[in-house]
């Protein structure tokens, strides 16, 4: 946690412990770090849930917002009383917290389904999209970022950097529109939208569509045509979301590797004759990895925002697409439920990423 007291004077640094004492302590260090980090998830989720609740309920009740124009005042009041929105706000808040604690994120107004069920149905599609995009982003961002750092201020670096900035500056839905225009409409190589063609969907349905992750389901049908169809549909959305995220990764990798390339230990290794390639790939890369992993973890939030927009662009029927449908239907219970659930996902992912970073960093590990 960020230090909040004034930094203790240099003088007060504890004397280096003897080796024996050090190694004895080693186990507990990582353990306590992970414990503290784990416990931090709860206030984080609590804050997010509260923020969303307060914001959503600041102006009124969801029933009026959703059905305001369609029902009479009496009908509305009846529905409101039925759902319990006429009780004191604090009571509703505590009940809401209790429900979330039990895993109940509410029931949608428009189609009367539990939010958790909506997530079960559409979560797999979003997961699949996010996974493809992350894969593209890592495959693009890490190697190119390393090249840019190594060839710093040269032509390659300049063009890579500008591509990175361009990627950041392009909204994901505009990138999606451009990709569609070029590859689907003009060239006709790839499908315009959706997760699979109608025929393939039927094939998948017939086979049970167990996981909801179409690639896995397609492979289990054993029909290469279905697999191909599913992959073709995934290419453009994955590229749109992945390239833009990759641009951010590129910049992140470049900055951190440039930072470690100018450290004393890389200079020291150079002074012993280690070649530049190895300096880049080992000596500078590993120490840069810890902050890179941490910041990549924070991009999960960005990836989710991007996924919502990408799903709408490509009619990719995942959580984001569904969220937009509920938004248009003014079903704010569903929106609130989904947003809170996604926040929980982000908090958990950040925890996992911090654990990975800790495992990579021997200073925390030992």
């Amino acid at each position, binding site marked *: *946690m*960020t230090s*909040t*007291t*004034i*930094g203790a004077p240099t003088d007060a640094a504890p004397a280096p412990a003897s080796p024996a004492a050090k190694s004895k302590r080693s186990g507990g260090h990582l353990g306590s*770090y992970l414990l503290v*980090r784990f416990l*931090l998830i709860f*206030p*984080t989720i609590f*804050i*997010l849930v509260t*923020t969303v609740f307060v*914001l*959503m309920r*600041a102006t009124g009740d969801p029933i009026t917002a959703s059905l305001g124009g369609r029902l009479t005042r009496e009908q509305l009041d009846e529905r409101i009383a039925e759902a319990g929105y006429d009780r004191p706000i604090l009571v509703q808040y505590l009940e809401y917290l209790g429900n979330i604690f039990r895993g109940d994120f509410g029931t949608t107004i428009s189609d009367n389904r539990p939010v958790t069920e909506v997530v079960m149905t559409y979560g797999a599609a979003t997961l699949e999209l996010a996974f493809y995009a992350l894969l593209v982003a890592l495959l693009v961002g890490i190697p190119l970022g390393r090249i840019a750092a190594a060839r710093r*201020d040269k032509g390659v670096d*300049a063009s890579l950097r500008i591509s990175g*900035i*361009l990627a950041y*500056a*392009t*909204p994901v839905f*505009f990138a999606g*529109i*451009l990709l*569609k*225009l070029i590859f*689907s*409409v003009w060239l006709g190589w790839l499908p*315009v*939208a959706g997760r699979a063609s109608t025929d393939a969907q039927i094939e998948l349905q017939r086979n049970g569509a167990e996981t909801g992750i179409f690639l896995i389901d397609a492979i289990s049908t054993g029909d290469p045509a279905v697999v191909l169809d599913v992959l073709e549909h995934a290419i453009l959305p994955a590229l749109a979301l992945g390239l833009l995220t990759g641009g951010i990764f590129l910049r*992140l990798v470049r*900055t*951190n590797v440039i*930072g470690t390339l*100018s450290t004393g230990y890389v200079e020291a290794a150079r002074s012993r004759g280690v070649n530049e390639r190895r300096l880049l790939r080992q000596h500078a890369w590993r120490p840069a990895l*810890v*902050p890179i992993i*941490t*910041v990549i973890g*924070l991009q999960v*939030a*960005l990836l*989710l*925002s991007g996924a*919502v*927009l990408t799903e*709408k662009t490509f009619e990719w029927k995942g959580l984001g697409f569904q969220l937009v449908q509920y*938004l248009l239907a003014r079903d704010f219970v569903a929106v*609130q439920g989904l*947003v809170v659930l*996604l*926040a929980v996902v*982000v*908090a958990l992912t*950040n925890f996992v990423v*911090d654990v990975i970073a800790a495992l990579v960093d021997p200073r*925390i590990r030992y």
Partner: protein
Amino acid sequence: MTNLPAPDATLLVAHAGPATPEHTSLWKRLPVVRHVRTSVGLQRTMLLIGIVLMLVFIVTAAFAPLLAPYGYAQLSSGDVNFGSQQPPSAQNLLGTTVGGYDVLSRTIWGARPAFLVIVVAVTLSIFAGVALGLVSGYFGGWVDRVLVVIADALFAFPSLLLAIVVAIVISGGQSSMWGGVMAAAISLSVVMIPQYFRVVRAEVVRVKAEAFVESARVIGSGHLRIMGRHVLRNSTRTLPLILTLNCSEAVLTLAGLGFLGFGIEPTAAADWGYDLSKSLSDVTSGIWWTAVPPGVAIVLTVLGLTLVGESLNDLADPRLRTRRAAKAAVPLSPVTAVPGGVATDRVPGVESIDELEGPTDLFDERGDR
């Protein structure tokens, strides 16, 4: 949060040199002007392109009525109806939308709400963020810890989702121009306040531990005096950088909201994101002119802002800055600002002991104990 090396490290690395004191003329001390003067090569080109794009954006927003051939909600010129989804022609240089509006005009008018959102959102968030960061970082304690956890939580939250929630609250969906602008601006400031808070707080915590602040404490200066005279002004050097990056984020989030249907009614103002969402179905039938112009407008605007922000970041970070002639050398002779260094010219002989104290030797930063 825990042990994180400032999670926003990519964008916010802050190793600026000593803050420029009030010696040189005000003009040369202005953040961006100062940066143009110290930059070279590619960095200078990037910075200048960014500044030009930013100016084009501001001019477009300011003079939209003069620049645009038609109004944003105009459906006809004279007696001639534009018609729906018409390709580019002499009458409509970039064609018309599905709703029958002139694409070029709407693209130009679209700079206005974007500009207003930036101004309102940044004004709202910067004061709140800086004030909170200053007080929280300076006093520390449990209030600080709680604020940090809240800021971290909000920071990790997908900003678009947060913006959607706030937009629902404020406008309940679509709205007039000012309604839409305020909804976007307020939702953005909810996202941005934690960012300003984090950055300013981190700087305050750093500055607070510096000897000159401790010295003020030893003297017996009151907290207000220390915060105002010593801490605040030394903690704001990264603000121009975050400001530009937040402006890009503001444009992107506004576009995202518009794209999801939280934009401004087409009759109330032109909104790039809204136009893009309407163009989605056009694209399938090969109509490009409704999608490309607003999209390019967003890209160029964000590009301009980001280029300025990136350059400021690089110039502020000695590790990333390209030096005039090359990379890393501490000037030995006519020195102006070497930390712990000197302001004397080269000494020809041993005249006084004080002159022997040359500036910091190359690589020779002795660990001072």
